[in-house]
């Protein structure tokens, strides 16, 4: 076991959570609430990052990091922007059918990078809206308006359209070519998407639970490294839906059959990550059972400066996963932290080990998107992803909160749309 730093776990988590939340205040455009995808120059806004920002404002108010009035002002700016945004679906609009383009110009709010109209990222955005709507429950005019807009934005999403005539939800749509011609295959972070889409009183998915079962029919229950689990390679898949939904003790048909639940499954996923890192089949520097975290993150790209490893292929921003990769020696320090609720001891041990070995992975108090100990320069400094990414900070802020107080889970347990969606997907038991 790595020697502990003088900071207590609670103090360390408080520092990291506050720093993570701080990203949103630094990266937000207060005029429209849009938040930059990352801290690098000219970054567009990501709607998923906005979703995490909206989910984080309540915890910041609760912890005294942000005044309630200031939070409401930011959230209202965000909601009003989306409410009034161009929904024509044109190439330079903001959205269509209640969905939004993945990346938006942070100033104008128009589509950036010819990005796709994204179903999953819209779901993460709306999950954030619903979280804010549950927390800001006062009778004041502002908070009343806040809740009304949240409801309106949720109700106007045409989830049925997003099936594109197929059984399952399409991944995206572009004005240039229509629906991207593939759906979701295998377990992914999409449970929250299906739950929100099934829970809609206005445009629920066609086929009711059939579409959810059509998606879960692509699941693979695997025994890997001695652990039975619902397989998905990248760790974020086992985390994102859990930011909002408390899966402890509730089961859908698949999990009932497997005598498991998604929360326990995510715990096992951390074990599989540890086992992979311990084996370290590609013999990267630093990997062991306390240094792991293969997930979607930034990473080095070819050609590399100051590297003796030019023969090795590097993947840039990619969904890294275990056990089949892609793996180029890049680890995300925030990934174990986002698994804190599932495996607190494992996660904290990994975090402390990585921080001690590679303190460069933390800057401005925040964890970088990734680091790669196999790649180091002449002075021995490991490669570290420059700046910070909003998604990483968002999942860290929210999952630390769920670990500390369960606030976000509690708020969303009381959200009728989520409960309805879960029931329609076949979830039963536990708090439901």
């Amino acid at each position, binding site marked *: 076991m790595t020697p502990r730093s003088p900071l207590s776990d609670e103090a360390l988590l408080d520092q990291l959570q506050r720093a993570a939340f701080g990203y949103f205040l630094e990266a937000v455009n207060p005029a429209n609430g849009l938040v930059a995808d990352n801290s690098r120059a000219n970054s567009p806004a990501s709607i998923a990052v906005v979703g995490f920002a909206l989910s984080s404002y309540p915890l910041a108010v609760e912890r005294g990091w942000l005044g309630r009035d200031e939070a409401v002002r930011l959230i209202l700016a965000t909601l009003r922007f989306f409410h009034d945004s161009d929904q024509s679906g044109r190439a330079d609009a903001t959205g269509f059918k209640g969905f939004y383009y993945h990346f938006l110009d942070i100033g104008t709010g128009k589509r950036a990078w*010819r990005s*796709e109209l994204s179903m999953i990222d819209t779901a993460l955005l709306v999950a954030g809206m619903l979280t804010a709507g549950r927390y800001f429950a006062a009778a004041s005019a502002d908070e009343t308006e806040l809740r009304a807009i949240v409801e309106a934005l949720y109700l106007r999403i045409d989830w049925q359209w997003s099936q594109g005539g197929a059984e399952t939800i399409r991944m995206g749509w*572009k*004005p*240039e*070519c229509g629906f*991207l*011609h*593939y759906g979701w*295959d*295998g377990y992914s972070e999409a449970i929250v998407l299906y739950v929100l889409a099934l829970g809609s009183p206005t445009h629920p998915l066609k086929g009711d639970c059939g579409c959810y079962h059509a998606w879960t*029919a*692509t*699941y*693979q*229950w*695997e*025994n*890997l490294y*001695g652990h*039975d689990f619902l*397989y998905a*390679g990248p760790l974020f898949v086992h985390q994102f839906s859990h930011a909002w939904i408390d899966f402890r003790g509730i089961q859908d048909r698949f999990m009932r*059959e*497997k005598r498991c639940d998604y929360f326990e499954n995510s715990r096992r996923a951390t074990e599989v990550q540890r086992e992979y890192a311990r*084996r370290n*089949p590609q013999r990267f520097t630093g990997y062991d059972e306390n240094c792991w975290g293969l997930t979607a993150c930034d990473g080095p790209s070819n050609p590399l400066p100051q590297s003796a490893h030019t023969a090795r*292929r590097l993947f840039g921003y990619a969904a890294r996963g275990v*056990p*089949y*990769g*892609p793996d180029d020696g890049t680890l995300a320090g925030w990934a174990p932290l986002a698994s804190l609720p599932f495996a607190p001891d494992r996660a904290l041990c990994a975090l402390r080990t990585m921080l001690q070995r590679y303190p460069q992975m933390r800057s401005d108090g925040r964890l970088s998107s990734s680091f790669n100990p196999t790649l180091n320069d002449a002075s021995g400094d490991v490669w570290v992803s420059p700046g910070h990414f909003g998604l990483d900070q968002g999942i860290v802020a929210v999952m630390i909160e769920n670990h500390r107080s369960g606030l976000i889970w509690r708020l969303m347990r009381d959200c009728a749309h989520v409960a309805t969606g879960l029931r329609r997907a076949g979830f039963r038991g536990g708090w439901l």
Partner: protein
Amino acid sequence: MTQRNPPDPTATQDAGDIERLANVHPARWRNPTPADHYALVVIGAGTAGLVAAHAAAALGAKVALIERNLLGGDCLNVGCVPSKAIIRTSHLYADMRDAGQYGAQTPADIRVDFAAVMQRMRGIRARISRVDSVQRLVAAGVDVFFGQARFGASDWLTVDGAKLRFRKALIATGARPDTPAIPGLVEAGFLTNENVFDLTELPRRLLVIGGGPLGCELAQAFCRFGAQTTIAQRWPLFLPREERDAAQLLSDAFVRDGIEVRLNTTAVNVRVAGGQKLVDLVSEGHESTVAVDAILTGTGRVPNVDGLDLEIAGVEYDTTTGVRVDDFLRTSNPRIYAAGDACLQDKFTHTADASARIVVQNALFLGRQRLSALTIPWCTYTDPAIAHVGLYVRQARERGIPVKTFTVPMHEVDRAIADSEEAGFVKIHVRERTDRILGATVVARHAGEMINEISLAMVAGIGLRTLARVIHAYPTQAEGIKKAADAYNRTRLTPAVRSLLRRWLR
């Protein structure tokens, strides 16, 4: 029976090709005088036709075999045999390139002699053609006719002016490449499996359209020979039928090889300018153009059902799916059966072989053997290769079968580590809470060899529990299968069993 594009005029006939053609379509061949009546007339002398003809003749039946082109069909002439021969050479070039990871020196000057590669292939093809030769058929008592068969009624047909009466007939006419409807493609000229093995020079730049088995195998081989290769696949992954992880590993391998991978991409137009082929590609609304010297298409196969006058014989067919057969491989005319690519969805040589054996039993001996009872493995011979048998997880779940997968990454297998061949896995799917094998996928350099053990287990009804008792030679890559079986055994140690064991051993 194959219907080939005209041979490439630049193709040379060396000793290998001369021997092969002497075996599979002698220039001076004269069709025999037909017998009064045949117990079985086989149309098409590809794998299915040859197997049926030999099997029926060996059992004493009077058999006629009709072929309009080359005995041996696609497999021998333009399919499995030539492709595997050149793939083997491409492996060697890849190993030379990767010599450093084996602690060896990469040769300073690796030159690809493409003509030598193709000459070796022709030699191999000639050698294997001896098995399919007309001389061997004649010696077995089969009457061989070259020409186009046409039905004249439900019990006779003609070939080269001769009338052949039959008690039973087998349609084994095979399939041919489907030409994608891309404007300008035909005018620009393109390669398929039917003429790619006639090449005498390596194209400097190659575009492969289609990410099925043929496209994937040849894209990798040609890339390893040094062709600047792009592969355009309209779906998100290659080999859409296979497991996502398998296809993903293949994508990664392609990129490692230096293939330019274009997924979710459709070719929409081809034109020729300045002696090169310009192909317009569209991917999610983004348009781009690639300039290449050759285009290879591998976008599916269509059955050969044309020109046979099947209507006259009362044989129902579809130009896309082929001759309609029941589970006993009987067509809508009870005298006539079909086998192989002409009627089957799974267009593999070994399936053609197995289906032909069913037809011989069912047509000549009142057998009731069913196609659906077959356990059919298959393999795509990329590097790593991807092999599968039985059900996919998705298929099992759609049928309401609870399924659990025992996964062993190849990096857990000592021999794979020793061979530096760790990319891949063994996944064996069983019915949950039993050891009954439903199916398996193996991704490994020698996956095609490894899948046979699992096929054997499935056919013999052997479960993982028994497989775990089978001693595997150490070290072999097939030990991955044993490890999956061991993993199953460990799951039998439930907490209750562990507790009992502890008490016993106290």
